[in-house]
């Protein structure tokens, strides 16, 4: 007969010396583990609770400006820096790690309306309501250490004066040109004191401009006549325009899918569009209760942050209809500009109360160096929480966010109004001939027309 019995020798299954690691053996057979789903559910519940315990997104405020902050710019070559410009012409370069001003750029008379940095990070372009565009030399990050005085001032490289006040400026992602928005859209070169090209389509002022990250010659602008216009620099005439019901305050292109952009609108929603097909929005992002003032995408292209007139900053998923996170403080007043940091971990908001605030992009994230085992465990908890986040007990915890009372009430009011409108529409439909009343989808409803 042939016989074999399980016999394990202790040496193979235990460690030799006490400095060795303990041996771990795995058998993934599901029959060894009973009630896996219930155990996962309990872990998801605990993960949701722990998430809420560790959710402390606010890192610090940067104080220094004397008037409300209207615009910010990121340096694409240096993670730690951010530029901000305020309504009294004060432009500062901040170091995010120490939250102090590194350098000031005095000289702009009147409000600074737009800031942008060139592709190599060496030139800062600012424009304002004093009809000037100023170019500044950005001090080298490696030389200007943390110990340098915060009152370092720089002299402008060049000052170009033009006919009308400017509302926004943006630099090409891979080139030498930058565009300003004002009464018309002007394209400038660093070395010329006059715009190289001008686009003028429509009668009203253009209030924001953004270059496409993938296609360096395409830019999107939004104007006061409630339109969003796409221009191509290689053609001498503008490419496409879509007119909505309300004005768009700001536009951001998705850096990972450069044909899509999201527009921050006055009607409290953000609309994501595919630039090739402007007759229908790809997604409508609702949750703010007042006009959305600024929008910026994360470098992963998966999330974007919005700042709104209702004193909150919200973070959305790029295809999410509702916000994932909402940040608010008693001291933060109307948020006029937001930026996502270039490594995707922080969000900076500039608001009416003259402060720049630094927040974590993921509220319960552990900052600093995370060991691989910790990271794995956190990823596991995140995954198991997402698997069960639709179950009522877990959902109740994951969804819960404290909102300030005025915003909570405003949101309820909006909800009641929209619900009432919807009910009336349904009743009208029910009591009229089938097919006579057609409801437009929400993605099309806010668009009036598309123009070539």
């Amino acid at each position, binding site marked *: *007969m*042939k*016989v*074999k*019995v*399980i*016999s*394990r*020798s*202790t040496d*193979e*299954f*235990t460690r030799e010396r006490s400095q060795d690691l*303990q*041996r*771990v*053996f*795995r*058998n*993934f*057979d*599901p*029959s*060894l*583990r*009973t*009630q896996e*789903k*219930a*155990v*996962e*559910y*309990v*872990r998801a519940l*605990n993960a949701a609770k722990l998430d809420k315990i560790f959710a402390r997104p606010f890192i610090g405020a940067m104080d220094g400006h004397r008037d409300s902050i209207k615009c910010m710019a990121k340096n694409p070559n240096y993670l730690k820096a951010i530029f901000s410009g305020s309504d009294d012409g004060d432009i500062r370069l901040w170091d995010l790690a120490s939250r102090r001003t590194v350098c000031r750029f005095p000289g702009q008379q009147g409000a600074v309306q737009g800031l942008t940095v060139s592709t190599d990070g060496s030139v800062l372009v600012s424009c304002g309501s004093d009809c000037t565009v100023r170019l500044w030399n950005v001090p080298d990050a490696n030389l200007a250490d943390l110990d340098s005085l915060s009152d370092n001032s720089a002299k402008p490289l060049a000052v170009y004066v033009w006919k009308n006040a400017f509302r926004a400026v943006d630099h090409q992602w891979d080139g030498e040109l930058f565009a300003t928005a004002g009464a018309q859209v002007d394209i400038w070169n660093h070395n010329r004191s006059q715009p190289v090209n001008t686009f003028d389509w429509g009668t009203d002022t253009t209030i924001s401009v953004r270059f496409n990250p993938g296609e360096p010659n395409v830019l999107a602008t939004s104007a006061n006549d409630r339109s969003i216009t796409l221009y191509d620099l290689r053609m001498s005439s503008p490419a496409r325009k879509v007119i909505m019901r309300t004005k768009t305050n700001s536009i951001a292109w998705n850096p990972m899918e450069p044909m899509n952009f999201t527009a921050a609108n006055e009607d409290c929603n953000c609309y994501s569009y595919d630039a090739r097909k402007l007759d229908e929005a790809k997604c409508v992002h609702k949750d703010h209760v007042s006009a959305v003032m600024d929008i910026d995408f994360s470098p992963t292209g998966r999330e974007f942050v919005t700042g709104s007139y209702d004193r909150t900053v919200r973070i959305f998923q790029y*295809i999410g209809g509702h916000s994932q996170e909402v940040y608010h403080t008693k001291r933060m007043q109307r948020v006029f500009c937001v930026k996502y940091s270039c490594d995707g971990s922080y969000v900076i908001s500039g608001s009416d109360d003259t402060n720049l605030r630094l927040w974590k992009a993921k509220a319960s994230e552990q900052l600093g160096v995370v060991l691989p085992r910790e990271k794995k465990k956190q990823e596991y908890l995140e995954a198991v929480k997402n*698997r*069960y986040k639709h*179950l009522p007990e877990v959902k109740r915890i994951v969804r819960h966010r404290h909102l300030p009372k005025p915003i909570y009430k405003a949101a309820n009011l909006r909800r009641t109004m929209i619900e009432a409108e919807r009910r009336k529409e349904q009743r009208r439909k029910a009591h009229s001939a089938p097919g006579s009343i057609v409801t437009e989808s929400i993605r099309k409803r806010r668009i009036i027309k598309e123009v070539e």
Partner: protein
Amino acid sequence: MTMGATQENGDDEMDQKVKKYLRGEAANLEGLKDKKLKGQLAVREELYGKSAKAAAKIEKWLLPSEGGYLEAEGIEKTWRIKQESIAREVDILSSRSQYDIVLPELGPYTLDFTSNGRYMAAAGRKGHLAIIDMKTLNLIKEIQVRETVRDVVYLHNELFFAAAQKKYPYIYNRDGTELHCLKEHGAVLRLQFLKNHFLLASINKFGQLHYQDVTMGEMVGNFRTGLGCTDVMQVNPFNGVVALGHSSGTVTMWKPTSAAPLVKMLCHPGPLSSLAFHPNGHLMATSGKEKKIKIWDLRKFEVIQTLPGNAKTLNFSQKGLLAAGTGSFIQILADFSGSQNYSRYMTHSMAKGYQVGKVLFRPYEDVLGIGHSMGWSSILIPGSGEPNFDSWVANPFETSKQRREKEVHSLLDKLPPETIMLDPTKVGTVRAARKKEKPTKEEREAEMEAAVEAARDTDFKKKTKGRNKPSKRAKKRKEIIDRAKRPFLEQRIEEQEMSRKKQKTNVETEMPKSLQRFVRQKAT
């Protein structure tokens, strides 16, 4: 050609393994209209497929040990092979597991193993409790409690065990210190421990079933089974359901959150003598006093196989071998083809006069522990244990640090008693939408009970300044309960009226002509 054939066999094998790790069918995404959701689900399904394939490959190539086997050659039959002949063929370490401990004065012995198979607790009817380390065959502690001990069971690790003594069950430490006396349980006949939920279940002389949470000491449920005294009790490891076998031949299955049993099935024409569950949760073996062993499929609640044999005790091993013990004879049944057709695999006869009390397979080893009237024995059954253990499920080579970590992690993962259900894969699934049938009377009653319970459990604000009088509180509570009951009572009244009206119309037609004028006319 042969290469192709072997490759095909290999593929089939891998497919089978992948199926095991997939844990069910892939979702059907055809009918989905939401494109976004469809895309997300398709990505998920692909990931599941990949992980199942990786797990199947690991199983094929990376597992350290192989299972045991016993093959007869020529005209030999496996059930005629004696333990002595096995001992001659097997290595010294394994032959140490065959022994007989004779302790005739202290009564029939019952055993329990910890979940990693390392420690054994033995209890003699006359009060002898012993803890033995099975790896070194060391006696860790033995105590004499000077009372009848009917059952012993380990709690979550080797540090705690519970003994069902004459009047109440007690919980002891590894050092033999008595930690708790569980008075609420009464005179317990059998104890079982639900590992994932940390619940100690017991059935006592009056047929009462108690569930106690051993972490906080809370009594989670106690129910009168109403079916008399029984000492046949097993917990189904797959779903945490406790099954009791009664003297009327019925098997009832219980969960701690309901007073009525989940299932009541008539298994045998006479009283049940023992019950056992297969670790995958789909098979149950029962034996009755009419000398038949039946194997049930628990998904359909049907008999798969009936075997002749008397079995005072039954136990399934990790690999699905069934041990049946009666008198001084033990037979091991195995299904070789995987088609759940059990046939004789091995037998063992002990000395005459030894009455088998309990058979229990040792986890992760090819060993069967037998508790009998003269002590306990251990024999080798090749192919019964799982050869590859997972360190994070049960580790036979656990150090004390690992044991402490495991205890903390399992406490964090402790399942609430509501998760015990017949089909544990239903957690997180969507409940099927109810068709527009009216709920039956029982369901309505159940709903009303549920509403009343919920209302009774609400606590209200504590009022101060003398407004918190007990009479007012009682009045308020009564008001809340009445308010919860109100919609059901209104429904009931409505229905009574409807039925009365229907009756009346019937009555009208039945009245003889002369009395027609006295029938109440309906207002036209």
